[in-house]
């Protein structure tokens, strides 16, 4: 796991907004990559690099804080959204019903928090953008995939749009 935070907050926020505007621009969304998923994180975590084991630990709610101490806040789409299924299967190597079982167990035993379920990708982007320590996933978009590092076995994640990525 690699982790570094070295960009001032405001600058990162601007980067994020720029990236979001780009991705939301008409025509920027390729029609043929409907179910390619990417992870998005809060602007305060712009430089985080996630590998599969950290992602699994985050989405199974086993870890509660990022290495810098920020509380982790997980956002997901409804279980029956095809994007959820795709994400859990491809990126976490898990089935959505296995995850739901683990979350329900935590919620109804007082041993943990369940992820917050959002109703749409637009809400996902908004909540992740505005919540410190947030992580979620959305459909992959061409504009945000530029200039990103390509770690082994793993398509990332970061919403950085400039040279810091």
């Amino acid at each position, binding site marked *: *796991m690699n982790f570094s935070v070295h960009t001032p907050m405001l600058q990162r926020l601007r980067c994020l907004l720029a990236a979001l505007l780009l991705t939301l621009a008409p025509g920027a969304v390729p029609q043929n990559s409907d179910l390619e998923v990417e992870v998005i994180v809060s602007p305060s975590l712009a430089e985080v690099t996630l590998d599969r*084991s*950290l992602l*699994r*630990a985050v989405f199974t709610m*086993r*870890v*509660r*804080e990022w290495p810098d*101490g920020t*509380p*982790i*806040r997980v956002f997901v789409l*409804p*279980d*029956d959204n095809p994007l959820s*299924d795709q994400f859990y299967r491809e990126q*976490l*190597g*898990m*089935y959505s*019903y*296995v995850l739901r*079982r*683990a979350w*329900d*167990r935590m*919620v*109804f*035993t*007082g*041993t*943990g*928090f*369940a992820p*917050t*379920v959002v*109703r749409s990708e637009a809400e996902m982007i908004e909540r992740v953008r505005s*919540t410190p320590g947030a992580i979620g996933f959305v459909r992959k978009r061409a504009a945000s995939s530029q200039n990103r590092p390509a770690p082994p076995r793993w398509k990332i994640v970061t919403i950085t749009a400039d040279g810091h990525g």
Partner: protein
Amino acid sequence: MRLAAALAAICCSGSAGAVDYQIHGYAAQGFVLSSHNDFFGDSTDGSFDYYEAGINAAVRIQPNLSFAIQAAVRDAGISDDGSVRLDYAVADYRVLSETNVQAGLRFGKVKNALGFYNETRDVVFTRPSILLPSVYSDNQNQRTLIFTSPGAQAYGATVLGQHELSFTGTFNAERDVRKNDERLLVELTVPFDLRVGDSWNLQVMDSIDGGRWQFAYSHFGGQFRMSTEIDLSGRFDVDLNVFSARFNAERVTLTAEYVLIDNDNRLTYLGAPFLRQRVAADSGYLQVEYRLGSNWAVMSRLDSFYRDRHDRSGHAFAAANPGIDRRTQFSHDFTVGIHWRPDQHWGFWAEHHWINGTAILQALENPPPLRHQRWSMLMLMAGYKF
């Protein structure tokens, strides 16, 4: 329905400054229609005397410190009375929280991990079927003993390659048994009081390849202590060992669990040993669940329970206890069920049980003489959670 869903979506989680909180709940109403014998109420005429509901809140003060509380009600014929109870109230302190290793401590009224389903046994959304298999004694008497109790709990998990190993160990303090449960546990003509002595509980689990395979061993060791006003006292030691295995594929889940229950019962009268009885009961099941899509699933299960594993037919028991039918000593239950989850909040279940033997019946609901060895039962349930 939409309004309720919208409200739930709004109020179930949030953060105020650095403090995160969540509020969740569940409610489900069941219906039981059985032939010959009664189960969860007067079910031969159709019983609605079966429901469960709960609401909980959790607050995270900082990433390593959280508090959670749940109030619950459950009614299940004579085996549960629908009174409001504190289900859990727990403080959780996380000592270690890294990607591949986590460990922590919990204090308060905590849930006991036993098998795959014990901790959330009253939430139908977490069960494979309306009625849990007999490993969990849903209509029996040991839920008081093992379900939830005041105590301290240590937990931990570590990732080793494809294996996620987790551990939960609980020490439960001595506690009183509710009057309503006492009459189910001990038949005695004089007034008595029943307490559960100090007990402990342990579970180790190996979850392989993102939960594709799961194996667990759980142990519970505890005792009931009975006192009366006539110098008759009793001590009933109970040891449970549960072995669990589950295979989770995309559409199919296969589950098998086996429990071995050792009972060591001692009665003392005027300070001298009066009765000593040792019995080993056991129970096991094989279950298959098949998901037809994201909303529909079907299940089937073969489930057996024996009050004395050395006398599975009950002949020896009947010979030693004239007037009591041998068929009270075992139950074989073949179940098929279907389950519909139209959205994340609602769930509807239906299942049919074909049962041979009456060991899973409550004697108070089915006074002797035994009515029928072979009987069947239709169960329906509708539930909402947020």
